[in-house]
């Protein structure tokens, strides 16, 4: 569904992505794992077209995403740090997004809005929100349009245990519908029952892209956290 070929990106002299080639298929749930500053978020942003790669290209359903924008209607993106216009209320932001993406006649998926109880907060201004509530709004927006691809950048960071459990359930549910889910997270234990594939990155390079079963077999560890730890030690 999403294929990146030889994507490289430099910010001035700093190489953030070096010849990354990955291919992500439908129905997979892919964990993007790597140390801080390994280029995970940049890779996600190149897929979204927010960062333009210096070389290489990315295709979405066979279409090059450069100069294209319509493909983004198939993506739900939850940013690492959700930033929203300060003086708008949650309700206004939700309505604005619905209004702007109203071109398709799909029904809105408001399950998360109900689960998180966001409806009770609709009149709160964005600048007064706590980090966790902001995360909830980001999550609601990512799932709102029932997209084929979900890209979640540290989805559970800052969420309370109950909410992150709710979010996990929702992710599993969407995965079962045959959607492509990409998650970055540093809390590996919560990825265990979610993911089917692992992409491991370090210093802008793709170290491996494996099925979770294969990784477990290679490292002899059942838990993802231990498997990754043994990979990191070997390097």
């Amino acid at each position, binding site marked *: 569904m999403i294929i990146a070929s030889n994507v490289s990106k430099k910010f001035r002299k700093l190489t953030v992505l070096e010849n990354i080639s990955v291919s992500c298929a439908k129905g997979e749930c892919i964990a993007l794992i790597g140390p801080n500053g390994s280029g995970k978020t940049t890779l996600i*942003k190149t897929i*979204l077209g927010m960062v333009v790669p210096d070389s290489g290209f990315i295709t979405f359903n066979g279409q090059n995403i450069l100069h294209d*924008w319509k493909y*983004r*209607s198939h993506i739900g*993106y939850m940013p690492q740090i959700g930033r929203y216009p300060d*003086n708008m209320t949650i309700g206004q932001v939700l309505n604005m*997004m619905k209004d702007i993406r109203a071109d398709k006649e799909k029904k809105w998926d408001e399950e998360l809005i109900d689960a998180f109880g966001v409806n009770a907060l609709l009149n709160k201004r964005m600048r007064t929100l706590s980090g966790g509530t902001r995360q909830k709004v980001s999550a609601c927006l990512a799932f709102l349009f029932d997209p084929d691809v979900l890209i979640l950048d540290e989805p559970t960071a800052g969420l309370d245990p109950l909410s992150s459990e709710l979010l996990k359930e929702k992710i599993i549910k969407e995965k079962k519908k045959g959607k492509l889910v990409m998650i970055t997270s540093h809390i590996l234990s919560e990825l265990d029952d979610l993911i089917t594939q692992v992409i491991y990155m370090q210093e802008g390079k793709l170290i491996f892209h494996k099925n979770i079963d294969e990784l477990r077999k290679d490292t002899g560890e059942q838990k993802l956290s231990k498997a990754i730890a043994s990979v990191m030690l070997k390097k």
Partner: protein
Amino acid sequence: MIKIIKYVITDILRNKIVMAYTIFLMAISLSLFNLEDNISKGLLSLLNITLIIVPLVSIIFSTIYIYNSAEFIELMVSQPLQRKKIWMSLFAGLAISLSLSFCIGAGIPIVLYAASSIGFIMLAMGIILSIIFAAVAMLSAVIIRDKAKGIGISVLLWLYFSLLFDGIVLFILFQFEDYPLEKAMVAITAFNPIDLGRILILLKMDVSAMMGYTGAIFRDFFGTQVGFIITLVILLLWIATPAWMSARIFNKKDL
């Protein structure tokens, strides 16, 4: 695109600054027309004030607005929207609200007191200058990432267009006073939209008779139909060039 423009304009209107600017313009124009017994004198004073204030408010407000919309822009860019459209909607929103507040603030007094051709040219010039400086602000805001630096550049640009440019022109004139520079002067003014506006309006007024030989040359050029149209085209270029350049840069910008 119209939807985004709508959101930008509601956001700007919610910000009280534009409202205050409108009231300020209204207060100044009304008091000037009431202070001067002669309408054209009032227009002249109003001209001098608008040529300073309109560019200043437009460029500073637009620059700060663009920087403060970083979150909004980020949110929009991850949606199925064309980047060019997002940028142009921001520009349109700024241009429309700034022109609107000039139209209301200065336009109503002008129509009430000086509904002549000069008055309407002045109104049009105020609107064009608002849009030009909004476009220039978009350009400096897209090039410079740092907010404080970007606003600083905008202030400097305003200083350049309103004060420094005239100083440089005077300097050149005195240095080369032995040469016939009057025709070249006409071309040089094209590099400053504020001067273009000033000359265009002054020539329609009686005071142009006191501008001497250079004034006569200006009158020969700007006073004619062709000159007027050329000036208009140059002013439109002053809008289109920065807007187009900033959209191109924004299209490739990493967010």
